[in-house]
């Protein structure tokens, strides 16, 4: 039962890697075809996700689970917006466009804006000079917070260059190391999957 998926994974993986390095027209044509397949798979994944969301919330409403009223809102929104979007389109002047501008955009922005309040409170409680490492973090955070806003330059001309140095030297060195580590890790994981060593994606170990 597992042989088929492992062979498909191996062939697809090696083919896509090979295509990446072959500039020949035939290779690029093959890639275009595979991309079309990917597009179709993504579209079905979107459909599957929507149906799954619907089924989950429908079940919750039927069973009157905790917070079921919010599931009703989700179902009405999902159904209504999908129906209107299919019938009318989603451009600016349509109902979906207005719902987006008047409901979705302000709600999403508001939710994210709340972070500013929680981060301020968390910073007050977390940035404490408890030891040398925490003190280093505290000092760096203060320099970055002041040096990266307009008022920092007014306070001290040295703040912007100091923040630039922090970003260009210690930050860049650490980020490069992390990026290289992630890259090597991704290559090794991909190879393990392509070669059939890691079969966890098939389920049950």
């Amino acid at each position, binding site marked *: 039962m597992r042989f088929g998926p492992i062979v498909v994974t191996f062939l697809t993986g090696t083919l896509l890697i090979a295509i990446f390095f072959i500039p020949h027209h035939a290779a690029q044509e093959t890639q*275009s075809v595979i991309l079309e397949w990917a597009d179709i798979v993504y579209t079905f994944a979107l459909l599957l996700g929507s149906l799954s969301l619907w089924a989950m919330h429908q079940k919750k409403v039927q069973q009157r689970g905790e917070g079921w009223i919010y599931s009703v809102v989700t179902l009405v929104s999902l159904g209504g917006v999908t129906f209107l979007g299919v019938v009318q389109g989603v451009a600016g002047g349509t109902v979906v466009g207005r719902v987006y501008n008047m409901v979705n955009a302000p709600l*999403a922005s508001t939710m994210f804006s709340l972070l500013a309040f929680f981060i301020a409170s968390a*910073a007050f409680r977390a940035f*404490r000079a408890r030891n040398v490492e925490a003190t280093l973090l505290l000092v760096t955070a203060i320099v970055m917070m002041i040096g990266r806003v307009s008022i920092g330059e007014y306070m001290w001309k040295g703040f912007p260059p100091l923040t630039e140095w922090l970003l260009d030297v210690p930050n860049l060195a650490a*980020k490069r190391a992390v990026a290289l580590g992630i890259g090597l890790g991704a290559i090794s994981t991909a190879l393990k999957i392509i070669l059939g060593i890691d079969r966890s994606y098939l389920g049950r170990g």
Partner: protein
Amino acid sequence: MAATTKSFWHRILGIDRRWIFLLVGIGTTLPLLFPVNLPVAASPRVKAAYQAVEDVPEGSLVLVSLDYEPDIMAELQPMAIAVLRHCFRRHLKPVILTLYPAGPGLIERALEISSAAEGGRTRNEDYVFLGYKSGNQAVILGLGENIRGLFPRDFYGTSTDSIPLMRRVNSFTDFPLLVNLSGSSIADYYIRIGASRYHRPMILGSTAVMASDYYPYLSSGQIKGLIGGMKGAAEYERLVGIVGDARHGMDAQSLVHVIVVLLVLLGNVALFATGGPKPRIGGGA
């Protein structure tokens, strides 16, 4: 007296977080109601991004991928407006798309604002809006092969084959510049595919939190410029010579940062006044 002082610092350590919320609320609201328009100095990274747009020959098409949703619009929407206005001012023709389903509404608004501010621009003559396409990495790979095949119709339902501007381009290689404003790993895909595989000059705009992740790509030359967060957007606005939402927002951001720093300092003074580091006092964030 000593007992009173100790009690005061203990109270500071255990301050109700709602007082902090109130301070942040005031710090955000006041500068927005009474702007002081603090001057913004442009960093080398933003100057490089600006210069990359300046270097594109007049009349060229520029691929602009605006990959964000309303949650981070405070940072990326002013950036998009500033970049689009810069393109329009230089008579460049942006071909715009998004890989986020909730992106088109914001892009329409950004186009409306930038077009009106630059004396009016005509859809499909001065710019093309292709709309949303699902698939992230697969779409970006497809942009290198067959854009009109990937987007047979634009956002408004017009066949892309019938748009004269679109007849001039069908792949990354047809664009002298890629612009990606993103709040996610989509930026990585554009760098790997558009900038590295197809060797296209690219500028990137990201949220402030993400910006430091892309410094290695900047120093390696894989991206030509980097606009980070609202500060980067404000710097770009300054270079373009406009005062938009980013420059207005910087006043509020400045004051809130000062408040947070003062709170952190106060917390540390209180920590040492109460006998130095020990297990935390007070509630959660």
